[in-house]
């Protein structure tokens, strides 16, 4: 009798899985391929290889301005949502206060609600508070909505944390402040990096919330969005290809970091034995 685990043969299922992978990757492959096509974004087969669209892209000041805007918003959002997310995760892990469940649900709401709801609520809030729409409102929107991501990641990290270390630190006379900086935070390093990378990527890509909070200066996704209405050229394929490459690079960095941390952990474990 065959064993129940991994090596059963099932050609039909394998073929289906290959098709699903093709479905997932085909559009991305097409996008990249046509960024090198001289004759535009459509047609088949792509005939004349060219780097002109990349050349055009690199001399396109509006795109690079929007890239800088996006980077600023993303960096600031990472700082804001990591700080508040860390505190929120600590509060959920360690403090009891009235309305705690409500607080947890509220923090997580932007993660599951369609972006348009959060975007419009914040738009109404900005108008109500007399704020002008600008990159600042976009940052407030991203930073606030992404507290949800920071809190989930960091709360998971805290759950795995060994409380005895903190207890020892406090017993040995360290102040709570010292304990926080020297014990809690270093132990959360990996979760912090993971959450930071995730928030950064999500902010760079975000469009539904930004759509309603944007002022005169565009973020990259909204700059692309604006161009899509004016007619499309492979220059958009080129910038999309670069975005794809940057996303993949970030994931690779993240896995390297994680692999290294896991590696050193294993080493420490071996040394202790």
């Amino acid at each position, binding site marked *: *009798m065959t*064993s*129940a*685990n*991994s090596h*059963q043969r099932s050609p039909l*299922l394998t073929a*289906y*899985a290959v098709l*699903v*992978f093709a479905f*997932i990757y085909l*559009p*991305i492959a*097409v*996008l990249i391929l*046509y960024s090198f096509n001289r004759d535009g*974004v*459509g*047609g*088949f*087969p792509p005939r004349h290889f060219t780097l002109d669209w990349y050349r055009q892209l690199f001399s396109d000041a509006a795109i690079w301005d929007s890239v800088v805007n996006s980077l600023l918003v993303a960096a600031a959002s990472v700082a804001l949502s990591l700080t*508040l997310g860390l*505190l*929120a995760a600590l*509060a959920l892990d*360690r403090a009891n206060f009235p309305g705690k469940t409500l607080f947890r649900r*509220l*923090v997580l*709401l932007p993660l*599951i609600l*369609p972006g*348009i*709801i*959060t975007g*419009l*609520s*914040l738009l*109404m*809030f900005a108008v*109500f508070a007399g704020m002008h729409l600008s990159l600042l409102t976009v940052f407030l929107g991203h930073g*606030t909505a992404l*507290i949800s991501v920071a809190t989930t990641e960091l709360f998971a990290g805290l759950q795995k944390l060994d*409380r005895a270390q*903190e*207890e020892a630190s406090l017993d040995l006379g360290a102040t*709570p402040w010292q304990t926080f900086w020297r014990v809690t935070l270093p132990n959360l390093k990996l979760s912090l990096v993971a959450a930071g990378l995730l928030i950064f*990527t999500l902010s*760079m*890509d975000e*469009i539904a919330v930004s759509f309603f909070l944007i002022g005169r200066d565009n973020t990259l996704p909204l700059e692309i969005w604006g161009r*899509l209405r004016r007619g*499309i050229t492979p220059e958009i394929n080129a910038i*999309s290809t670069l*975005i*794809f490459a940057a*996303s*993949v690079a*970030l*994931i690779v960095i993240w896995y390297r970091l994680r692999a290294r941390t896991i590696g050193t952990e294993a080493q420490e474990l071996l040394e202790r034995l």
Partner: protein
Amino acid sequence: MYSRAYKAAISIPPLLWVCFFLLLPYALMFAHSFWLVRDGSLVHQWNLQNYRALFTNPLYFQVFLRTAGIAASVTLCSLLLGYPLAYYLSFHAGPRKELLYQLVVVPLWVSYLVRGYAWKTILGSDGVLNGFLQYLHITHEPVSFFLYSPFAVVLMLTHIYTPFVFLPIYAALEHIPRPLLEASQDLGANRRATFLRVILPLSVPGLLAGATFAFVLSLGDFLAPLLVGGPSATMIANIVQSLFGAAYDWPLGAAISVCILLITASLLFTTERLEKRWSFR
């Protein structure tokens, strides 16, 4: 072990921030839905006019039905693609499992807009698909109905949410203790019976989580219809968006948003209940 001051220091800042920048904005949306616009400006007069308009004007109901239909199709298609993929990875992929898992996760990091745009270039009347069909002499003129149809919206959103649906299902399948499957086989169940009686029921929580996610996020999408859907695929969030833009009726837009929010909340609540009932721990 933690002092009162420590607890206050960790809970008060996020509490205040969330109340100010999240609770207050959502509350403002509720408030707006009970106000109205008169002569082009907002009047803070409490009334139910917006909700009455929603329930009496058949246009909104029609668009809402279409939206629910599109969201349901997206959910179904994502499940049909995501479930077998998760099943394959969990039970048949062998040593390539980790790599294949990463291959499913990578697209999650690729911008929504980039993926939507890719479909636009594929489906357009002078797009890649039409070029391909003509190249093979299957068609002789560009087919225009690929793009700007509800079909295009379902296709694009399915492409986006399949990895999302895959993740919780895969996690659920990975948590199934393998001896259970051996026990099922030893007791004489064939593979179909093992799947239907053991694997499927145990993966229901993951399946529900993935399905809810795909449905809720498709329900509130307004970018896909703008990008690839065209007028025949206008969804409820597009109405909201136009009410907040050119049509300038924030209160009515807010009322529709509140309805979307309530539907989302009740769906999440129901799923949570169902997940608890189906979870085996």
